[in-house]
């Protein structure tokens, strides 16, 4: 579970870094990924890998459309307006999904066969968990390589650091924003695609992924990808521990309380430095 939060948090970060926006439609990307995956793999019976690739591309395109249609046309928007736009967009995405896919829940088999488990020191771990961890690992490695070794990645980091300076250096910041939406939507789509066998999805599951992902992103320090991954995992583990040992009522409350306490003590998140926080005003 934590891995999914981590993936969602990564998505938040990528857009945040490029634009300073918190994209509240991020959860919707995860939901779309899950729904499409269920459709392609379970209904159309496409081979897994093909379905996965198609899903990720499709969700990424939705991200692109979102950016082109809603973010791009604005000339000089305030952060708050952008946030509201992403909220409105997420309502729309939800609505469209509801009409196309219906209101039922969709699920599918585990990637490696129904209900297969691996015995690990007495604890039975579903094989899907490894798929999820694997995807997280691949995404993290991919991002590290992308941001550090490729020109486009470096350009995006430059944008994150100082947008004006980056555009003066000839980096097409607008295109970078577009690309960041593409990338984070793709990551969201991946997260959705791997989670659907475990948790199933309907048109409303986006909000939960969104909140948890946002929580993880803030917890780890906005804009800090390493922080996002660790914080996502920590939140997931905290949740499981609370439900297992304390009270399942407060399963969601305790990690939140921990998050709040951390913020109060260290206002820029666990791994965020104050300077890197680059606090954006509303």
């Amino acid at each position, binding site marked *: *579970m934590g891995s999914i939060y981590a993936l969602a948090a990564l998505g938040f970060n990528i857009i945040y870094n490029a634009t300073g926006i918190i994209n509240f439609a991020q959860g919707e990307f995860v939901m779309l990924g899950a729904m499409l995956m269920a459709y392609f793999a379970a209904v159309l019976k496409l081979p897994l890998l093909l379905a996965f690739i198609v899903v990720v591309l499709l969700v990424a395109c939705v991200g692109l459309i979102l950016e082109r249609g809603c973010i791009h046309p604005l000339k000089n928007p305030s952060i708050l307006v952008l946030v509201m736009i992403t909220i409105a967009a997420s309502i729309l995405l939800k609505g469209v999904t*509801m009409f196309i896919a*219906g*209101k*039922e*829940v969709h*699920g599918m*088999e585990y990637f490696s066969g*129904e*209900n297969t*488990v691996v015995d690990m020191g007495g604890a*039975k*771990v*579903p094989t899907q968990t490894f798929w999820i961890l694997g995807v997280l690992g691949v995404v993290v490695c991919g991002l590290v390589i992308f941001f550090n070794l490729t020109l486009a990645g470096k350009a995006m980091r430059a944008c994150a650091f100082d947008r004006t300076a980056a555009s003066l250096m000839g980096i097409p910041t607008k295109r970078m924003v577009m690309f960041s939406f593409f990338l984070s939507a793709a990551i969201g789509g991946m997260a959705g695609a791997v*989670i659907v066998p*475990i*948790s*199933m999805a*309907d048109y*409303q*599951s986006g909000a*939960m992924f969104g909140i948890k992902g946002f929580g993880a992103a803030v917890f780890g320090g906005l804009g800090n990808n390493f922080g996002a991954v660790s914080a996502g995992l920590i939140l997931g583990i905290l*949740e*499981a*521990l*609370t*439900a*297992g*040992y304390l009270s*399942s*009522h407060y*399963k*969601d409350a305790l990690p939140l309380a921990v998050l709040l306490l951390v913020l109060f003590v260290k206002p820029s998140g666990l791994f965020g430095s104050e300077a890197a926080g680059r606090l954006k005003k509303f």
Partner: protein
Amino acid sequence: MMKFFKKQNLFCVVLVLCFSLTVFSFAQEKKEEKKEPIKIGAIFSITGGASWLGEPERNTMVMYVEKINKAGGVLGRPIELIVEDTEGNETKTVNATKKLITKDNVIAIVGPSRSGSTMAIIDIPGEYKVPLISCAAAESIAVPVRKYVFKTPQKDSDAALRILEHLKKKGVKKIAIMSEASGFGDQGRLQLKKYAPEYGIAVVADDTYGPKDTDMTPQLTKIKATEAQAVVNWSIVPAQSIIPKNMKQLGMTIPLYQSHGFGNPKYAEACGEAGEGIIFPAGRLLACDTLPDDHPQKKVLMNYKKEYEERFKDSVSTFGGHAYDALFIIVEAIKKAGVVDKDKIRDEIEKTKGFIGTGGIFNYSPEDHTGLQKDAFEMLTIKNGKFVVLQD
């Protein structure tokens, strides 16, 4: 400063204009009203958290109202169905109810889908003297009896009793309860805890989960460590299909009982292989193929199932059945009353006896607005991915 504030004045005027426009448009709308059709209102959670409940309910209503109208309507007048959406939100439900009653002047209301929503509006029918038949299960809707409020689903407590009976028969002494943190799950949890001692059954674990949770392994791991001989899960959301999966992954072999909220073929489908052998109480609709031919409900159930599935290309669920029952109870009452009068219709609804619906055989009385006994529930199980009546 003068100028600055003057500008503000103008915005206020604009605001005020908008406000008065709305007011006037409200006032205008009232005039266009035709008296001809008989208006029946319906309030379902068509969107929002419980849309999978509201959807079949609405579909059922729409389909049968069309059918009735094609056959000449009731008392020679067509029925006009006005469906409202609660969005699963209590405030919206209140608005919808008031709209139906005071703006649309409906003569009776079917719904809401959920217990919480029903409780939010429970006094309104009495205030405006409009009969309402709820499609939500909670016992508190009909206990204490409210003059204008009826319900069609079976009682929660009956479901709990049926489960406990079965557990007792199987010699189970210790159970673990899982429930979803919602009105439905909470009611069931309370009922189970209340009646379990009467059957000599101890509750050794009592856990909840959020309606949108995706993994119940932590709770189940905790339960696994107890001496529970069976898990009883009370939920109405898709999340419950995850429990059998999780249990299988954890290697738990104790039987899983679900509530009547499991009565949706999609849930069984979602469980896949892990769902085999789940035991749960439900109306007979789901397993009507396996009912003996001489069962009084068989014909009604088979017809409803056939018609619904033909029209909507979607498997039938008990929830739609609740709406079916409510609609036809009202229609029968109108026929018997002979006039379209809210109070007379209410009286006739209360006099309903031996009405064969999808939920069971309804007998309302001034003391009982539930209409069903606990034998309305049949214990079902999943065999080869299909609901069948449990034989033993």
